[in-house]
């Protein structure tokens, strides 16, 4: 497919037009931290930084209503109550703008979870209405390791449209029909001879990431180390059990379900959950199969690098985006854990 050019100064106009037809999720930088959000009118995203959060909330919101329930008491017999249940699926089309290739891959990792044997209608309704416009990573940083998970800074997988950075804008490459459609605008001009410039940035980015450790093929090592409590204790020593790693992860999908009510009305909500929390597996009886944080970390690593790959043809549930590494308050680096696991458990 041919490339077209979008000048940096035309980005706001393009977003303005997209905004007419769909919700736009894009990174906004505040206080030095870029995070995805649904843009308001005339808000201009910052595509220059690697966003601290992933855009997964666009398809899997941190909180969503599964259904509402309303109790109706019978006027003639107040002990008789009818309960009405109703639910609503997303209808508004949306575009994720400024996703990174690792983010697009993250959605691809979530798809088989929510669209497998059991179909999750809430996720699928959003997913079907979502267009992904990714920006290739010309400037990966030291926390990035996408090639080690099967991706790459210019990996087109999962994107509808890929923006390749050049000095004064982007070369846009349509990858799907939906992506191509977004290009049918006078704001885009022929790419001319800009392709070598984009190519050279790509080469540099890939060279920068050449040392990324391979996170794949650790299934056996994990199983071998499963009972090595000292290993997991050490890997988890600094963990303060916050939820950063799971909440910023483009591939984490675990969730909680709770009820909230007020008077005769209420709703059942689904919220992101986190496996490093003691409460995650705490049973009402008092029994907890993952009492210690080391066991919870073991499950976290196992899920991403053993159980998920065993179910999905060796693909790890990690895109190498590096967000957990960048933001961990204790500097825990998932690369180091998997590397030493592969070494010790070989």
């Amino acid at each position, binding site marked *: 497919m041919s490339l077209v050019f979008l000048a940096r100064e035309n980005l706001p106009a393009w977003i303005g037009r997209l905004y007419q037809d769909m919700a736009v999720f894009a990174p906004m930088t505040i206080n030095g931290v870029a995070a995805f959000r649904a843009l308001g009118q005339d808000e201009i995203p910052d595509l220059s*930084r690697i966003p601290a959060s992933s855009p997964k909330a666009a398809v899997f919101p941190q909180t969503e209503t599964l259904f509402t329930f309303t109790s109706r008491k019978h006027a003639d017999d107040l002990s008789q109550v009818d309960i009405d249940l109703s639910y609503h699926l997303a209808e508004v089309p949306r575009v994720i703008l400024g996703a990174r290739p690792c983010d697009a891959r993250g959605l691809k990792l979530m798809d088989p979870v929510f669209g497998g044997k059991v179909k999750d209608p809430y996720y699928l309704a959003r997913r079907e209405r979502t267009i992904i416009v990714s920006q290739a990573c010309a400037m990966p940083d030291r926390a990035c390791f996408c090639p080690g998970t099967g991706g790459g800074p210019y990996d087109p997988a999962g994107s509808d449209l890929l923006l390749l950075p050049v000095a004064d804008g982007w070369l846009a490459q349509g990858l799907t029909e939906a992506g191509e459609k977004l290009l049918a605008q006078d704001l885009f001009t022929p790419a001319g001879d800009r392709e070598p410039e984009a190519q050279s940035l790509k080469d540099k980015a890939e060279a920068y990431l050449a040392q990324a450790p391979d996170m794949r093929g650790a299934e056996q090592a994990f199983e071998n180390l499963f009972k090595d409590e000292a290993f997991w204790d050490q890997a988890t020593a600094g963990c303060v059990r*916050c939820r950063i790693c799971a909440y910023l992860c483009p591939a984490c999908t675990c969730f909680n379900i709770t009820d909230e009510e007020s008077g005769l009305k209420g709703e059942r909500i689904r919220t992101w959950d986190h496996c490093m929390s003691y409460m995650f597996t705490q049973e009402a009886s008092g029994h907890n199969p993952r009492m210690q944080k080391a066991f919870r970390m073991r499950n976290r690593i196992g899920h991403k690098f053993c159980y998920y790959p065993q179910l999905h043809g060796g693909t790890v549930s990690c895109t190498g985006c590096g967000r957990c590494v960048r933001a961990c308050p*204790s500097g825990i680096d998932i690369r180091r854990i998997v590397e030493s696991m592969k070494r010790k458990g070989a």
Partner: protein
Amino acid sequence: MSTIDLLREAIRAKLPDLDMVLAWGGDDPLRASPLFIRTESDLENLAAPHLYVSNLAVNLYSLRSKKIGLVVKGCDSRSVIQLLKEGLIARPSLYIFGLPCEGVVDAAKINREIPDAGRATGLAVRSGRVMVQTPENEHILDLDAVLADRCLRCRYPNPLIYDQLIGEAIPVGEIPDLYQDLDEFEALSLDARHDFWMETMRRCVRCYACRNACPLCVCKAHCVADSREPHWLTLETNVSQKWFFQVLHSMHLAGRCTECGECERACPMGLPILLMRRKLNREIRELFGYEAGLDLMTTPPLSTFSIEEENIAEREL
């Protein structure tokens, strides 16, 4: 000998008597991570002192059954004092290496200053300047521009409790205006302050890193924020829930918080949440002349009372 060599030797000498020593290490050029030293070989991973950004006291409560060696900066030592004072940890199971501190760099500030800070390969501090090396550039910054906020208003560069001091105590410099940021914030209109929290809490992802990185938040899995009975909070990630949690956290720290700033440093969204805690601290200072974590003897002001309160007027309607 340099500070790091002194520290290494001090730890090496005490290590046989201790289950582990908590210090800072790792290979990130912009910040060190907690380093759990169990064997001598772990000592090779010690990082340079201007990167000792985290407060290791956060680990003490969960390790209270062990014999722990701990390296503290002046600010960290206040958390240790507060934990001891509240009876949450015991002094005999603790060996404290006190480290006079000239300030630590704040990686978030460097990230704001330098677009390619994420690619940094090295950092050096020399005579008030910070050199950050990246594959393409060498950036030079003023140290004051990238020091952690708490260092800019530091009054206790020397630890207030220790078994052994590493190197020489540092003379305490001029004490800057402690609450200038708060004064500026309070000069805003009530509505503007309200809106500020709305916009701030909007960005909160409710990861509880602020709570979990706090050395004085010791309720862990029993935090009321995670409880359904009583049901203080729902799991909804709307502004009202997130805001209420911040108030709840601040309130539970009133008269206990030492302003170590870990809540703010741990926040992945860079939210200025220490402000709330600082406000409570200022009021407690003005009302009761009290600051947390300075000594082992005084009672925290909200755990006691005076029959005649000097600074509280009778309220009438």
